């Protein structure tokens, strides 16, 4: 392990308080997103991918920019200060949602320094995120941008153009592939002839593969890349290998997937593993953890209850040239 790497590990994974906080957010994500799926059969479930998501964005500074993948971004918005009930309202398309019903349900507030989702086409957020890095390089600031995207999305032309641009201009951007093995019904073997991390060499940037279900490993690997970017040493590509335990959308039973294919991954889903480690390390006992679950579930339920009291959007929300 290089010196820098040790530094990174120290700075991201050694504090018990922060470790518990990471667990808390992963659990929050699980519960909140489940609730979204329960109320919206077209929600995109994130179960199993929480370690990749929380691990990629948890250690960012508030003034950094986060551009999370469309699957499971709410925890990123929440970690950065978005209000859960307004996120719930966003998921439900209510007028108190951050976009007031205008944008896709998985968008969030610009105020917490994110790249918001304003359309459903995959790949374009890579460009916008790269542009955040451009602004930081232009200013000479030490802010960075972390952008995550799916393993399917990595085949869009925008992936190539942006990683190359970031490399040419030495931009402080960390590209994290949230590799869950699937793009809707297609399995990664069919569209990825090589590991994503192997693409980094073509841009002369570091490329690493990491266990996306091991939140410490994700934090450490992304953390190292973030430090590198912050130092002015340019972009990195990280492939976090995780797995989409559920369907593409909540009501999708994945008939295209071999029966049992998800089982090995379910056995190593990140939350249970993390809980076991917390107990092992004496950071929390079963009671504390189940109390936390109850408390978070109550918060989530309350957020959705409040969101459901938010009115459906009407003419005021429509804006611009609203017809009468």
């Amino acid at each position, binding site marked *: 392990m290089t010196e820098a790497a040790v530094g990174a590990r120290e700075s991201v994974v050694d504090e018990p308080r922060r470790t518990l906080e990471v667990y808390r957010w992963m659990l929050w994500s699980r519960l909140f997103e489940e609730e979204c799926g329960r109320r919206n059969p077209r929600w995109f479930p994130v179960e199993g991918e929480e370690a990749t998501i929380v691990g990629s964005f948890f250690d960012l500074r508030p003034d950094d920019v986060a551009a999370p993948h469309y699957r499971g971004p709410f925890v990123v918005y929440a970690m950065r200060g978005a209000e859960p009930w307004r996120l719930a309202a966003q998921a439900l398309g209510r007028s108190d949602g951050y*976009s007031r019903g205008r944008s896709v349900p998985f968008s969030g507030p610009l105020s917490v320094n994110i790249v918001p989702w304003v*359309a459903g086409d995959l790949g374009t957020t890579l460009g916008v995120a790269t542009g955040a890095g451009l602004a930081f390089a232009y200013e000479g600031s030490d802010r960075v941008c972390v952008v995550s995207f799916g393993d399917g999305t990595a085949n869009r032309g925008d992936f190539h153009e942006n990683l190359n641009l970031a490399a040419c201009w030495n931009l402080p951007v960390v590209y994290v592939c949230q590799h869950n093995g699937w793009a809707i019904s*297609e399995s990664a073997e069919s569209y990825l002839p090589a590991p994503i991390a192997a693409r980094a060499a073509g841009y002369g940037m570091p490329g690493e593969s990491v266990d996306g279900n091991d939140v410490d490993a994700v934090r450490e690997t992304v953390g190292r890349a973030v430090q590198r970017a912050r130092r002015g040493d340019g972009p990195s590509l990280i492939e976090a290998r995780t797995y989409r335990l559920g369907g593409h959308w909540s009501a999708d039973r994945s008939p295209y997937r071999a029966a049992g294919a998800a089982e090995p991954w379910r056995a190593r889903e990140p939350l249970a593993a993390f809980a076991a480690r917390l107990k092992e390390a004496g950071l929390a006992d079963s009671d504390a953890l189940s109390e936390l679950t109850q408390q978070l579930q109550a918060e989530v339920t309350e957020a959705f209850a409040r969101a459901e009291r938010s009115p459906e959007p009407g003419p005021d929300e429509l804006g611009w040239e609203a017809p009468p």
Partner: protein
Amino acid sequence: MSRVTFAEALVGAIADEMRRDPDVFLIGQDIGPFGGAMQGARGLFDEFGPRRVRDAPISESAMVGAAIGAALQGKRPIVEISFGEFLPCAMNQIVLQAANLRYMTDGDARVPVTIRTRVGDGPYRGHPQSYEAWFAHVPGLKVVMPSTPADARGLMTAAIRDDDPVLVFEQMFLYHAIRDEVPDGEHVVPIGPARLARAGLDVTVVATAWMVHRALEAARQLATEGIDVEVIDLRSLAPWDDDMVLRSVHKTGRLVVAHEAWKVGGIGAEIAAAVAERAFSHLRAPIARVGAPSIPIPSAAPLRTRVIPSAEQIGDAVRVTARDAGPAV
């Protein structure tokens, strides 16, 4: 005759052409075991297998480019762009290769590629924007947009058999909502001619896709008010049936154009402009256009409903047009 949905009609056309012609094959995302977005390719993989029903990586530009290249080698590929909002990703291939090849090679190259895509509002509300007007502006492309299962089948068949690139815009609300008669066996609807959806004497309404249904709904209401509306289902946008539209306007002297896409710069602008150029002396009232207002199409259902033209809006436009007494010079 059998009664099938819009989606089934589209799949049926593709399946029949694939049975008929071994050079026809399908490229797209999730068209394999999954059956295509909104089940729009259902059953094709089971019947034709992975060689002819090819699940592709998320690479819309490469998919279209590859189809064009295969077409130059005598194949007749169908590219499925899951939703029309992804057409911008493939714009360079469509506009600079597909559209140009025939003309620029003095006819040596033909590009029998069909690009099918789903647009507009629909049961799942995803990816509603529709850009058909862009493609109707580009010489070398043909554009069709059916409104009924029968036309879905007939136009898809014609598109696949056409030697030029054809874009088929499939409106999502219609996908599973309508079940209607479709002729059994060979059924080709030529690209170009419009369809007279309802004959009438007072006002001509030219509409596309879902708006044809809303125009007919409006026409039924207006009939009770004594206004006899002629509804023309444009169904081909490039080339479009100027003949039928002009003849209708000669008769009625009044024109309303309705589509789901944004009104400004939409296909309705071309229809209206052409009529103002070529049937001016027959017009007895201002032309009216009905389309989405100039805002990005919002996501939430109550907002969406306000943005997409309703039967009432079409009806109101017709009423105003019909009321007008003729031009005050």
